[in-house]
């Protein structure tokens, strides 16, 4: 009886631990994959570790995560400890109020804390970035330090500090020589908690950071588009470091017991010195990073640029590029409206129109851009910016249906967008989680203009989407659709042509269709903000991006259709020969470019889209 029970118990423990460790082991395992896939192991390689070392974005993020975590830990531990000590000597009312307030960040959902801090920083006009992130981290770490130190202080004989002072110690000496050594376990536990919370934090950092300052979590979150084993390599290293640290931490007490007290002291010194060295190193690195150079702030969609171009540009112009990415044009606009400042933006057509209308942009001085001659005719002088006074085309394309040739019946393709409502493919398709593109599909399927402001038509489109949602069970995916379609998870997806090109080049079973009912013909372009303080550098940047070499390597990396003639032609013959999505369909008269929406209309669309998703 007893044996049996112990077997079941063991079995259960193993199952639970397996459940916890499965994702971690998978992460570690695929960091050694020789190919890009995260689901099929093709062979052992250290390729991704090598890439990790070369990835500037990730190594910067590691620095940010580490330095913020170290500083937040040190500051919140000191602040929390002295507060915990002070609390035990305070009047009851003060104590109770402060403890209750202190509990707020612990008991409140993280997202609420994050939003509160974000509102605070933006309303006092603080630039989002390193400092706001550090302040926020201290703010949410300190309460945990207090809760772990306070009970320790309370359990001390209140006369100990008195005794020390009685023996001639100043209050500060009494604190350092008596109180702190006695509560050091609590302090250590609090510091450890603070460090983990800070190092792993995503939600709060996500809301309060900005201006290119990203920690590991934010980088990982923005990586959805082309997720690759580089990040697995990083997490494998993190896991190994954590395990080493935990082993060491658990071994120190054992070692200390064996050796003399002296040894213990020495060990403490060594640890202290090491921590200080790391801290100083990080500070120096941070200080060196922006050493008096000109800084250009670029804001682009995620995974939408060959990042090695940035390094090249930095080198050539002896400047620093702060590069930040957004998930959607709306997100970019929100940040801009909230007072963030950038020099160069790369938004889409309709957003450019809006930015022009709302006077966020300045004219481009084309005299400073000799490479203008490289641009294709097809991409210039479009409705969103006639005469290209404000914008320089970057990439262009369409929105269409990516489908699996082995699954989808060619006959069904004739239905165009209605394919997305064909019950044969129920549960087998991805929609794109974008309000304008989804409504575009419905409008086009219904034969309306995708820029319609007629509320009846909008309502009809809304019903189309609701019906589709109810009958087809679509997934409203983000950029993870790319990985999913490469793996062949579903048969149909709504994607941008550039993503389609990339996906088709990775998975030959797929093909791309732009329905005859018309689609969104889109242009993304570089613009210079009104507040730009580095206009010369901004122009140099635009010129650099449309040079023949840059455009080619950019297209090769990202997969979108370039606006530079030579790159366009070269890719057409090369990597993307025969890939239908590569050449945007400019002939179909039903195709449109998104136009500016009045705020009221926009609000209406946004609400309806939330409702489509929220059911």
């Amino acid at each position, binding site marked *: 009886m007893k044996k049996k029970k112990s077997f079941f118990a063991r079995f259960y423990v193993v199952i639970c631990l397996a459940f916890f460790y499965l994702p971690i082991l998978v992460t570690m395992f695929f960091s050694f994959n020789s190919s890009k896939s995260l689901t099929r192991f093709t062979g052992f390689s250290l390729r991704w570790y090598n890439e990790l070392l070369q990835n500037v974005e990730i190594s910067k993020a590691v620095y940010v995560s580490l330095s913020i975590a170290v500083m937040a830990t040190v500051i919140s531990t000191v602040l929390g400890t002295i507060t915990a000590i002070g609390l035990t000597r305070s009047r009851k009312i003060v104590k109770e109020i402060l403890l209750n307030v202190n509990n707020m960040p612990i008991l409140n959902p993280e997202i609420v804390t994050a939003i509160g801090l974000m509102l605070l920083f933006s309303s006092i006009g603080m630039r989002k970035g390193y400092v706001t992130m550090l302040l926020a981290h201290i703010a949410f770490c300190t309460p945990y330090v207090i809760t772990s130190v306070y009970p320790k202080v309370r359990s001390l*004989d209140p*006369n100990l500090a008195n005794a020390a*002072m009685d*023996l*001639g*110690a100043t209050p500060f000496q009494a604190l350092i*020589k008596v109180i702190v050594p006695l509560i050091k376990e609590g302090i250590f536990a609090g510091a450890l908690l603070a460090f983990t919370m800070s190092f792993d934090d995503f939600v709060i950092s996500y809301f309060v950071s900005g201006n290119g300052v990203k920690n590991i979590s934010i980088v990982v979150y923005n990586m959805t588009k082309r997720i690759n084993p580089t990040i697995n390599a990083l997490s494998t290293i993190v896991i190994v470091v954590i395990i080493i640290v935990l082993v060491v931490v658990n071994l120190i007490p054992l070692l200390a017991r064996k050796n003399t007290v002296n040894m213990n002291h020495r060990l403490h010194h060594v640890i202290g010195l090491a921590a200080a060295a790391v801290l100083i190193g990080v500070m120096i690195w941070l200080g060196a990073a922006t050493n008096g150079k000109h800084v250009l702030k670029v804001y682009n969609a995620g995974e939408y640029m060959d990042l090695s171009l940035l390094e090249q540009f930095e080198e050539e112009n002896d400047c620093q590029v702060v590069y930040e990415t957004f998930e959607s044009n709306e997100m970019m606009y929100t940040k801009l409206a909230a007072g963030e400042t950038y020099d160069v933006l790369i938004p889409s057509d309709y957003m450019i129109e809006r930015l022009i209308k709302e006077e966020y942009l300045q004219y481009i001085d084309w005299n400073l851009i000799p490479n203008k001659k490289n641009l294709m005719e097809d991409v210039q002088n479009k409705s969103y910016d006639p005469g290209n006074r404000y914008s320089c085309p970057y990439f262009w394309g369409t929105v269409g249906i990516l489908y699996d040739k082995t699954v989808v019946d060619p006959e069904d393709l004739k239905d165009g967008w209605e394919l997305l409502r064909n019950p044969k493919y129920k549960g087998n398709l991805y929609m794109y989680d974008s309000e304008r593109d989804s409504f575009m599909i419905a409008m086009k399927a219904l034969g309306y203009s995708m820029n319609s402001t007629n509320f009846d038509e909008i309502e009809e489109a809304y019903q189309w989407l609701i019906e589709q949602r109810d009958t087809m069970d679509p997934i409203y995916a983000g950029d993870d659709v790319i990985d999913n379609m490469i793996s062949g998870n579903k048969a149909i997806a709504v994607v941008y042509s550039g993503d389609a090109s990339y996906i088709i080049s990775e998975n030959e079973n797929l093909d791309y269709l732009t329905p005859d009912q018309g689609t969104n013909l889109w242009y993304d372009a570089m613009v210079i903000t009104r507040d730009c303080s580095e206009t010369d550098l901004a122009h140099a940047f635009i010129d650099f991006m449309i040079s023949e070499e840059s455009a080619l390597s950019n297209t090769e990396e990202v997969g979108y259709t370039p606006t530079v003639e030579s790159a366009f032609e070269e890719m057409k013959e090369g990597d993307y020969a025969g890939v239908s999505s590569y050449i945007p369909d400019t002939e179909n008269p039903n195709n449109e470019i998104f136009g500016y929406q009045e705020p009221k209309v926009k609000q209406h669309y946004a609400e309806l889209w939330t409702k489509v998703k929220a059911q």
Partner: protein
Amino acid sequence: MKNKLIELKDLTKNFDDQQVLRGINLDIYENEFLTLLGPSGCGKTTTLRIIAGFEEPSSGEVLFNGIEISKLPPYKREINTVFQKYALFPHLNVEDNIAFGLNLKKVDKSVIAQKVGRMLKMVGLEGFEKRDVTLLSGGQQQRVAIARALVNEPKVLLLDEPLGALDAKIRKNMQSELKKIQREVGITFIYVTHDQEEALSMSDTVVVMNNGEIQQIGSPTDIYNEPENRFVAGFIGESNIIEGHMLQDFLVEWDGFRFECVDKGFPENEEIEVVLRPEDLDIVSPDKAQITGKVISVTFKGVHYEILVETEYRTYMVHTTDYAEVGRKVGLSLGPEDIHVMWKMGAY
């Protein structure tokens, strides 16, 4: 006991809206063993903490060698304290605890070692240098606490109920030892206790406190034999306290009986209270005494019997070595020197 070392002048102390000291005036002399005695909450510990510097008085002065020190922080005073639960530093061993104050003063290491050794010898803990203080017995911890305070050679040692946590037997030993140590180091000890026996057996001067006020200051004998009021009489030892009148100097009356006494200076017919110590009363045959009554209880107390005698007016407690069986009619005899007349107090 010539030089005043500490003077407390009109000390008051309020915690929030509660007044714990209501005007304390006290002179403390060099080499004196002074005890603050009183029930818990009487303000004795607060007085001690003000002398040590852990509390500031709400008003009044603390003079040390004639200099006002009530605002001086504890670490600048030549005063050390032995705390109620010793407050030894648990992270330091015996030696480091004792050397704590000297280390702060950056005294030379060899000097420290020498002084610590001498202290340990004095408190009888030779060879305990490296011991972990948390593993010592209560009595040993007590000795470490004393050594830790005395090694700094303070002018005054404050002891806050230092024996409270010890069991009865060790307590007795420690009492005599403390007294011995005080003679040896020759400094002023200010001792706080609620135990009257402890106070009487160790002190040169006893200060009886209640309700934030000093009730009486005097030598143990004075306090015992000549309690100034009902509180002191009740608190120190056991006593029969009886209301009566002072008819004239040396003549007192209660329950209709008149007795000669040694007290004088009261107004005629003043209402007073009389203290009769139980051991001063003798049981005699009824015809030999004014007061007569019946024995209602006899308890054997080891050295003596405690006998309760019920009279027409009240019950007297008598301590005597003579046995008297319950129910017997007896008389109570007392001489003039056995009668202590006190001013009557309203409050108690």
